């Protein structure tokens, strides 16, 4: 008989349940290197089909299954069961409106992403082939472009919990910096204008939960620091 894993999973259906509760499940260790998503899939397919959670690629690329795992945000699909203290507490991303069980409303998160205008803005005439970039300039995008917008960083940020209506959060600001450092983008001034705000940018108090939570090992705190330095150099 295979080893059993105990999970304590957040359950809540607004409109039906009076308040959220934690439900315990026992799942067999199916294979070595089994991930948390495998355990959730087992629960859904073999034990309780009503459990709701988001998933898609299953390999840490799509960013659908951002969850709070034993108190730390991460992606279920790349989090190995081994090494997790049991019972494994699985909760939705913190400070988010729960739609059902582990599914949260990401609208506000993506609204904030849209506010930083995450696309190339250039007024110079389009070259015959493409806008070229030197390997050195391309290298500046490393550590930013890999973001999969899973929301693990933003929802782990206490500043965002307190002032999420105005503070853009680490994910959106990491992407703001991604376009600020892009040599092909010509809207740096506008981009800096858009984040120069006591709440939108400066609510970051360098708590660094974001870099701790990021499943892609990115560093939004450093990106935010770079934007602040850009603003200072523009003024000084």
């Amino acid at each position, binding site marked *: 008989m295979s080893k059993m894993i105990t999970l304590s999973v957040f359950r809540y259906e607004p409109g039906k349940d009076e308040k959220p509760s934690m439900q315990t499940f026992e799942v067999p260790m199916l294979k070595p290197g089994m991930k948390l998503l495998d355990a959730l899939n087992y629960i859904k397919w073999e034990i309780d089909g009503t459990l709701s959670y988001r998933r898609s690629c299953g390999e840490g690329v799509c960013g659908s299954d951002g969850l709070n795992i034993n108190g730390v945000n991460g992606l279920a699909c790349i989090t190995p069961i081994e090494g997790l203290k049991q019972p494994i507490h699985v909760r939705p991303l913190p400070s988010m409106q729960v739609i059902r069980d582990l599914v949260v409303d990401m*609208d506000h998160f993506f*609204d904030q992403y*849209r*506010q930083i205008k995450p696309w190339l803005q250039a007024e110079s005439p389009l070259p015959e082939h493409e806008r070229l970039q030197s390997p050195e300039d391309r290298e500046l995008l490393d550590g930013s472009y890999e973001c999969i917008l899973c929301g693990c960083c933003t929802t782990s940020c206490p*500043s965002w919990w*307190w*002032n999420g209506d105005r503070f853009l959060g680490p994910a959106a600001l990491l992407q703001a910096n991604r376009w600020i450092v892009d040599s092909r983008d010509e809207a740096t001034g506008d981009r800096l*204008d*858009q*984040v*120069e*705000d*006591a*709440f*939108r*940018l*400066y*609510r970051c*108090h360098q708590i660094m939960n974001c870099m701790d939570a990021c499943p892609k090992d990115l560093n939004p705190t450093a990106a935010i620091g770079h934007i*602040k330095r850009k*603003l*200072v150099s523009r*003024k000084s």
Partner: protein
Amino acid sequence: MRTVKEPGSAHSGLSDWYWQRLSAVVLAFLLPLPFFLMLMVFSGAVDQQGLLDILDHVASRVLHTLLILALMVHAYMGLKVILEDYVHMLAWRIPLIATMLVVMGGFGIWWLALIWAWA
């Protein structure tokens, strides 16, 4: 696509951030000095008259003034951020920040008066 209705940037925050860091640098240099002076007094290296001579010297007064100004600016910026973080109702937040400004301003002026012996 959802329409984002948000007020945009207030173009503020940079000067707060800048002054908080600038005052921190000044404090890092000047704040150890009074502790050093206290250490000298407690160890017996400086007696009461010696302490008064040091404090009365114009260079000490200037440094002391800079220290108090930096302390006021730094504390005001820090406490303002804390109030902004935790007090969400503007009807509370703005009067609280204003009260803090008045109290700290009064304290700073009183201290400066002591340094320059106006009182």
